[in-house]
């Protein structure tokens, strides 16, 4: 007994070392699972505050550039809306349709504006922190977009901050998207290299499309509504197994100067998920 105590007295720091390493290891491996707490991430209030102060300062300096970009984008979209409205009116002779459609679209989705308080581009698995959390109505698995296009999916939610998995996350980001006006769909991945280039995989071999065409979200997942911009097709490759195409896409979102984003809250999601589950259950019943 005495020997044991002496031994512990001399070597207790090894014991402490092992305990601390085990704690680190547990943290390291638990973080890969989906149900971890928002405490040990930048979604916690203290770190969020620090990042918010930092971003307050840097936002001020990059404001003019972001502003310029938004103005351009706004101009472009306005022109497109006008063109489409004219085409639609020519085709249907209906002048009130636009207002009705807009109201319908807005009633379905709620947009929660948020500011990016921390962002990285250099890691293979980047994460973004935004300054809105559960008290503002943000929930896990909501889509996040900015004026220029898709950004990512909410991953962890704290009271006042949330962590978002952006497109630029090699291991976790898989956003369902489609080629505009063609309907062929695949999913968006990133290879961890150039932050302005991503890939769309699983486009079927019989698909017809051209380089330079636009990719947008498909609306098949419950995260994004259809039609949120992703980027432009740059190159086309064969997939590794030769069964589908892999498209190289120039992303429309500039992750390097991301400031203002909005979280898309879709009220119909709960209903759709419930329906999906009911369908699965009934299939299981028949399966047996």
């Amino acid at each position, binding site marked *: 007994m005495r020997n044991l105590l002496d031994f512990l007295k001399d070597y207790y720091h090894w014991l402490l*070392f092992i305990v*601390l390493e085990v*704690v680190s290891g547990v943290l390291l491996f638990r973080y890969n699972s989906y149900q971890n707490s928002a405490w*040990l991430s930048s979604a916690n209030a203290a770190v969020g505050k*620090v990042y918010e102060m930092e971003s307050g300062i840097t936002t001020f300096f990059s404001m003019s550039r972001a502003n310029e970009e938004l103005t351009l984008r706004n101009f472009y979209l306005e022109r497109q809306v006008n063109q489409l409205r004219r085409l639609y009116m020519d085709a249907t002779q209906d002048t009130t349709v636009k207002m009705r459609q807009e109201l319908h679209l807005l009633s379905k989705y709620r947009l929660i504006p948020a500011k990016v308080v921390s962002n*990285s581009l250099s890691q293979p698995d980047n*994460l973004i922190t935004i300054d809105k959390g559960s008290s503002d109505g943000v929930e896990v698995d909501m889509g996040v977009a900015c004026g220029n296009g898709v950004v990512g999916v909410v991953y962890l939610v704290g009271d006042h901050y949330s962590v978002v998995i952006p497109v630029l996350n090699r291991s976790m980001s898989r956003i369902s998207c489609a080629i505009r006006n063609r309907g062929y769909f695949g999913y968006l991945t990133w290879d961890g290299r150039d932050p302005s280039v991503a890939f769309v995989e699983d486009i079927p071999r019989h698909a017809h499309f051209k380089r330079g065409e636009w990719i947008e979200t498909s609306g098949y997942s419950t995260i994004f509504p259809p039609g949120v911009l992703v980027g432009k097709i740059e190159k086309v490759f064969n997939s590794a197994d030769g069964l589908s195409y892999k498209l190289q896409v120039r992303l429309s979102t500039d992750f390097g100067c991301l400031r203002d984003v909005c979280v898309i809250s879709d009220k119909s999601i709960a209903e759709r998920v419930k329906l999906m589950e009911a369908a699965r259950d009934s299939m299981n019943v028949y399966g047996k």
Partner: protein
Amino acid sequence: MSVELFKRLGWFVLLWVAQVLFLNHIHLFGMAMPLLYVYFPITFHRGTPKWETLLWSFVMGLAIDVASNTPGLAAASLTLVGMLQSYLLELFVPRDSAENLEVSVSTLGTGKFVVLAAVLLLIFCLVFFALESFNFFDWLYWLECAGTSTLLTLVLILAIESVRRT
């Protein structure tokens, strides 16, 4: 004692802020990262109780992890450095030097300090990048990341040392 504690706390906060707000954004050639917070456990006095070094290192690692969304990564690697620091230091201190010798260029001499810092940094970087790329192992890239990050951090540490000395 309390002066010592406050000094250490000050360093802790300073290095944390520098790492989180500035250095974390630097990524030279897609591989070299300045990991300046390793400077924190390197400079623990000779004769600091081992449990103290270990706890400080762990807490520093955890604080960095929380801010960079990598729970456990820096904590695990930095605790290892905290453990090795006191043992390695004994190999470098001159004979009959003070029990609570400070660890810096002026007390150890440039050569010894550089070797001590480089060895600890290299161990840290090797473990850090190995853990980071756990499910995607490219050993050449791993060595490049660890090597270049060690060099970059070492240069930063020497710059700070030269400022502190004057």
